[in-house]
């Protein structure tokens, strides 16, 4: 045969019904988790030197022989690799992610304590990023050419700003110069503002850039002309028609965005001294707490996969074309 290429666009993509789709996707989630677990398992084995020592923090941990023995027993390190692997999977299935040497507690517990804070931060940032991106788009679409140029310039710069630098600038401005926002996270809604803003601004830049492209296309779509021709005002056209179209590709990016927020949380949580997985992860990396690192990575992979599923659902909600079967 020749190239196994799909034939034409219209025929290629089947659009299964909602339930089947959900089932398929759920199966995909399970698969991704299994594969992620496998990768982390082997990552653990790839750490050079004695895996027991690695679990206890590497050569610098100065772990005693008893401690090493205990770890070997606990993890079955004297067993064949296959047995170790199956044991590991079995433990995961029951929610046992192992014991963190640096925290003196089960990894699952440690993650449980931190997860909420990071999730809250990520979701707030996501919402904020969306709000910023939409607001900027709304302003620059209707503000004429200069506003358009300013808007896309702002997005460009925002997307190119490293989190840790932005955090510093925001602290200097809002906390030191203006003195209106706490420079470190405090309990209550006020404390999340700067961290969320730090995460949201670069993301808003990305979302905005993506939206801008599709916004242009949408603004020129014939249906906009139709809407104008029936007497709709520009504002209504933007909010009712074009924004929704522009949002579609960006919504598709939200899963990715969530992942990038978690990445960003590593930096931002440290700068703002905010509780969360990112900060735990960083200290775990610095202390070479391999069990904790793999545990966190795994849990984030789970959250991320679920988030992707959610955005796909949102995508289907916002864009009926995804699920519609053409007549």
């Amino acid at each position, binding site marked *: 045969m020749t190239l196994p290429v799909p034939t034409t666009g219209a025929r290629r993509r089947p659009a299964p019904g909602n339930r089947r789709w959900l089932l398929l996707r759920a199966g995909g989630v399970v698969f991704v988790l299994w594969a992620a677990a496998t*990768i982390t398992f082997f990552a653990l084995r790839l750490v050079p030197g004695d895996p027991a020592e690695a679990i206890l923090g590497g050569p610098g941990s100065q772990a005693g022989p008893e401690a090493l023995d205990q770890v070997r027993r606990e993890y079955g390190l004297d067993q064949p690799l296959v047995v170790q692997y199956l044991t590991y999977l079995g433990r995961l299935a029951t929610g046992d992610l192992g014991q963190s040497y640096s925290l003196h507690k089960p990894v699952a517990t440690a993650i449980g304590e931190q997860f909420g804070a990071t999730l809250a931060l990520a979701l707030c940032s996501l919402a904020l990023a969306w709000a910023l991106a939409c607001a900027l788009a709304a302003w620059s*679409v209707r503000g004429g050419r200069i506003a358009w140029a300013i808007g896309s310039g702002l997005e460009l710069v925002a997307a190119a700003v*490293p989190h840790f630098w932005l955090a510093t600038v925001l602290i*200097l401005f809002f906390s030191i110069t203006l003195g209106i926002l706490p420079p470190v996270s405090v309990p209550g809604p006020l404390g999340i503002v700067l961290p969320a803003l730090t995460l949201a601004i670069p993301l808003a830049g990305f979302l905005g850039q993506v939206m801008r492209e599709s916004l242009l296309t949408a603004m020129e779509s014939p249906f906009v002309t139709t809407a104008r021709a029936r007497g709709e005002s520009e504002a209504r056209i933007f909010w009712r028609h074009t924004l929704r179209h522009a949002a579609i590709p960006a919504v598709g990016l939200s899963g990715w965005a*969530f992942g990038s927020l978690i990445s960003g949380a*590593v930096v931002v949580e*440290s700068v703002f001294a905010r509780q969360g997985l990112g900060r735990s992860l960083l200290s775990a*990396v610095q202390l070479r707490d391999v069990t904790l690192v793999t545990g966190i*990575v795994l849990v984030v*992979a789970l959250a991320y996969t679920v988030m992707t599923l959610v955005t796909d659902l949102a995508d289907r909600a916002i864009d009926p074309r995804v699920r519609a079967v053409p007549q």
Partner: protein
Amino acid sequence: MSRLRGAVVRATAFRPTAAEAIAGVVLALLLVAALWPNLLAPGDPLAVSRAEAFRPPSPAHLFGTDESGRDIYTRVVHGAAESLRIGVLATAIGIGLATVLGFVAGLGPRWLDFGTTRLVEVLFAFPGLLLALLFIVVTGPGVLSSTIAVGLATAPGYARIIRSQVRRTAAAEFVEAARVLGRGRFWIITRHVLPNVTAALFVLATLGLGQAVIWVSSLSYLGLGAVPPAAEWGAMLAAGRTYIANFWWMTFFPGLAIVASAAAATVVGRGIQKRNRSAA
């Protein structure tokens, strides 16, 4: 709105827009800085001058000096080589890996595509920095491992794009036209698919370069990448942050360099992308 489109359409002509021209100049300067830093800043980026420590920007020290009296302008210029080398290397690793994955998935038999796509999906489930951190835990911190880590972490994203690009090209009508003319599979891949995807790869690399610089600098900031006194921008920024309360210029200028190069790479990349797209 068509006036806006007009601006974009005009961008598709060869003549660059103002933004693209500026971005091009920035990239050209970066390139000069990376290859012949002494042309722009003849000084030694590591030259310590304690008496000159913490000087604010002035004609003598355009960007001021750092805690050891090193000239920040000189360091930023010389840092371009370091930062860009890391960025380019990371991008090259990421895109190289992604190209293999993308082509295997895009052109291989269905089962291979399935397997590769799932693999990419799994890798994609690890947010970038986390994948990088996982890698660093395994290999230990350092410039090389953080570079590889960033390359690895960005590969899944690229792989997806390349795969779809490969598939799109392979399904393009001109490929069918070639088949009708009796061209073989290998011929089509080498004459049509590869060149067309390569153009997209170049854009991807330009866009990715900016992000890679940011990523690597983030790892440096976290103390897992380049280390002082290396004039790497992220490391400079991290070192300068300690003094942010009193000496803003120590972080401002390296930060500006990162933002400017990332933004310039994006503008140029998108410019090329637009031209490609309009040609496609």
